[in-house]
């Protein structure tokens, strides 16, 4: 097991660096100049050439790509204020990913990226977690039921419903929820943000109720998006398990059907879901651009998306590095859990 762990960890580092390099190149080779984006004001003004140069120089955009990448990677700051070894003033010797210093945003120099990532994670992670729990909570019984009732009219109707749900575009589903539950429909729920205006003046109980009421629609939108896929996965896995000999043995032993299904079939059927469950982690830090945009939630998905529109290289690289790291760790955890569950894997 230790050898397996070492092997997996050894792969993790080059994979992570490879991802950051690909993202770095993709971002820098895409059309659009962050300096121009920063200074381009469609209000009858010309970008000031000196200001453009200043911006490029401050963010090393006038240096070769390799220097820019090494600056992003760290641990040495290669800017004019950076480490003396690289011709800097020594004022800010260390920085970059390896120094755990992601610097400041291009568009808001007064905002530290680490601080903003923390704020956004506090918004995105609880929503994604609630949505994942809701989706799994519905998908497992639904998938198991569909497997047990395979071929029945009701199961076919459910399959049709799930396929329809799966094929609906996320933005459409979110807008439909707004129309259905907002004032234009039933008028039951707020449709914007996570708090009402003036929520800070409420007591903790009312504040929590306000938060829950605001969270219902975004959580539903997030959960419904993945529900169909998860339910179909559980169904397929359950069907495969039900055909296994140990399930037949359990039945022939005379065990009650409830015990056969819950203890023997369902538990084993959920094993392949370990990978899917582990992939919740990236969703916790990645967020959803569509849901966050429609419900006006300042989460990670929108942060990354807006940074892309603004060509804020520093933010894009930070967010993708974080997402890549969490995804790789999630896959590692999934593989390890698999290895624990299945000896054939750990013994290679």
């Amino acid at each position: 097991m230790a050898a397996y762990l070492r092997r997996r960890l050894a792969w993790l580092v080059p994979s992570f660096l490879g991802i950051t390099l690909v993202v770095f190149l993709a971002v820098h080779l895409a059309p659009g100049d962050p300096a121009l984006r920063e200074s381009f004001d469609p209000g009858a003004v010309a970008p000031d050439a000196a200001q453009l140069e200043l911006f490029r120089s401050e963010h090393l955009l006038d240096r070769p790509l390799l220097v820019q990448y090494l600056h992003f990677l760290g641990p040495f700051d290669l800017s004019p204020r950076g480490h003396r070894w690289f011709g800097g003033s020594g004022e800010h010797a260390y920085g970059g990913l390896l120094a755990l210093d992601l610097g400041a945003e291009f568009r808001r120099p007064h905002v530290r990226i680490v601080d903003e990532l923390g704020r956004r994670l506090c918004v995105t992670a609880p929503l994604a977690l609630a949505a994942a729990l809701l989706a799994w909570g519905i998908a497992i019984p639904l998938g198991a039921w569909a497997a047990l009732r395979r071929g029945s009219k009701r199961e076919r109707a459910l399959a049709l419903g799930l396929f329809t749900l799966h094929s609906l575009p996320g933005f459409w589903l979110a807008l439909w929820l707004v129309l259905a539950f907002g004032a234009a429909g039933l008028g039951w729920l707020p449709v914007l943000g996570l708090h009402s205006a003036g929520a800070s003046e409420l007591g903790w109980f009312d504040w929590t109720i306000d938060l829950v009421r605001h969270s219902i629609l975004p959580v539903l939108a997030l959960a419904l998006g993945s529900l169909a896929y998860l339910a179909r996965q559980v169904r397929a896995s359950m069907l495969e398990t039900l055909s296994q000999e140990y399930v037949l043995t359990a039945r022939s032993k005379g065990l009650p059907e409830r015990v056969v299904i819950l203890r023997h079939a369902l538990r084993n059927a959920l094993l392949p879901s370990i990978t899917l469950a582990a992939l919740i982690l990236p969703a916790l830090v990645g967020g959803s651009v569509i849901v966050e945009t429609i419900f006006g939630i300042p989460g990670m998905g929108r942060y990354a998306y807006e940074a892309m529109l603004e060509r804020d290289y520093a933010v894009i690289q930070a967010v993708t590095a974080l997402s890549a790291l969490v995804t790789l760790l999630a896959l590692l955890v999934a593989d390890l859990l698999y290895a624990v569950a299945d000896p054939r894997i750990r013994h290679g």
Partner: protein
Amino acid sequence: MKSPMRLALPLALLFALPQAWKGVDSFHPAHQPDAKGVRPALPKPAYGGRATIHLESLPKSLNYAIDTAGVTRRILFELNETLLTEDWNTLELVPNLCASFESESPSAFVFHLRPGIVWHDGVAFDAHDVVFSALLYRNTKLNTGSKGPNYRRIVEIAAPDPLTVRVKFDKPFFRALVSIGDMPILPAHLYERPGASEDEQAEFIAKNPHNHDWVGLGPYKLERWEGDRIVAKRFDKYFAPERGGYLDELDWLYVKDDAAAFQATLNGEIDLFGRLSTEDYFGSATSSELFQKNLVKAWAPSNSYGFLAWNLRRPKLQDVRLRRALALAFDFEAFKKSCYRGLATQVTGHGVPESEFYDRTLAALPFDPKAAKKLLEEAGWSDHDGDGFLDKDGEALKIEVLSNSGNAVSESMIVALQNDWSRIGVQLTPLLLDFNSAADRAKKREFDGYLTGWALPTESDPEATFHSKNAGPGTSNFPGLADPEIDALIEKLQGELDRGARTKLWFEFQRRLYDLQPYLFGFSPPRKFAYNQKLRGVEFVRPDPNYVARRWYYPAGTPGTREQR
């Protein structure tokens, strides 16, 4: 070259917008005129309550010195004040933070500040804040966008006493008074680092936490800025209580998606939504019972206009006959009806159509495809090869139009242009790119026509957009216009301090532009709003942001309000 068509003023006014938007509560259903044309009295204002205003983008900071976004300025309209302010009706500059001002010479001004003004943190405001702010724009290490050059014309600025500012420019300059009068002032006690180098001072300003936690001088004081919501409370020590706010709290809420923001307005979560589409304004969205019961729809003229900039570096587009023919071949009226339902002003020159500097007597070119074809024939463009499209010297007449993708109006205009031009044998190739890619191509001048727009102050300096010194790549002179007559007019304008004389120069400038047609001038559509019917005192004004939140109130007797401040 043809001389501009001048028509009688009453006829030209047909192109302008009606004046129904003017006045307090002019759109409110409870304030409509009766059969005799008399409006009911306005309700008595109460103090208290809050209003939430929709933001279509989130400001990067609240420090307008380093963030030139319109959205920042709109918020600062209530959170900060300037030495002078624009009168909503006359658009003239009137004293605000200063009690009076005078001109010592054509290039020197003295401002006498009002005593007793305090910043939101309680520190006294004085002349040093003004001097510090003016000087920081001269700091070449600080990214102040396009503001820097105007302030670098200052040769002398001093505060002889705490309530006097004396400023002198290098030479008479028509934007000099506005530059100082409309200058965003920063609290020196929070932004100044005495003895620091330009580099250090620039970094101190760019990374200052008060860019986020703004301390200003306005009738509303920033309470907190959390994620997408910016909350401000009424400032009790505001220097002009009679012009202070009625509402206790103003919230600005960023919602990127307009459809979601409109639904939230219907849901009562937003009190003013300023991006109502033409379709919604005239359609079922605003005629529903829910809307009619709770909301008011309104519009106000905007200070922006759209245009198609011709790339005059391309040989075929250097011929003014081609540019004029392409304008004659486009049915502006049909587009105005289909896209704006008639609620837009067709512009014929550079400027804000509602301002005195805009020549409203310049009539739009008529829709005349025959005249367009004739002009093209004169210019040598005919269908020589019989393929149905015009060509000259073996080159087909193809126009590549660059624009930002995702803008429904731009996309409609491109389709309409394509349709109309194809009828005279001109091919249009659309090039719709995301903002950055489009800006990149525009900067490198890789287009025949660039469909974009300007948002302008009442009177702008046209040097950046039309002077030959900015004709190179990377500037705002998209066409690359280099016309000695235009250059001379711009320079005269810049040196002319008399408003009346300057208006005449503006008219000459616009007529010359009309002759040259560096742009295919488009439309200035009004901004369309939906707002909470419970809010009263809502007046739409010409200066951006088109409304004055400090004048809004809930009528006396509304729950949660009070009679006294």
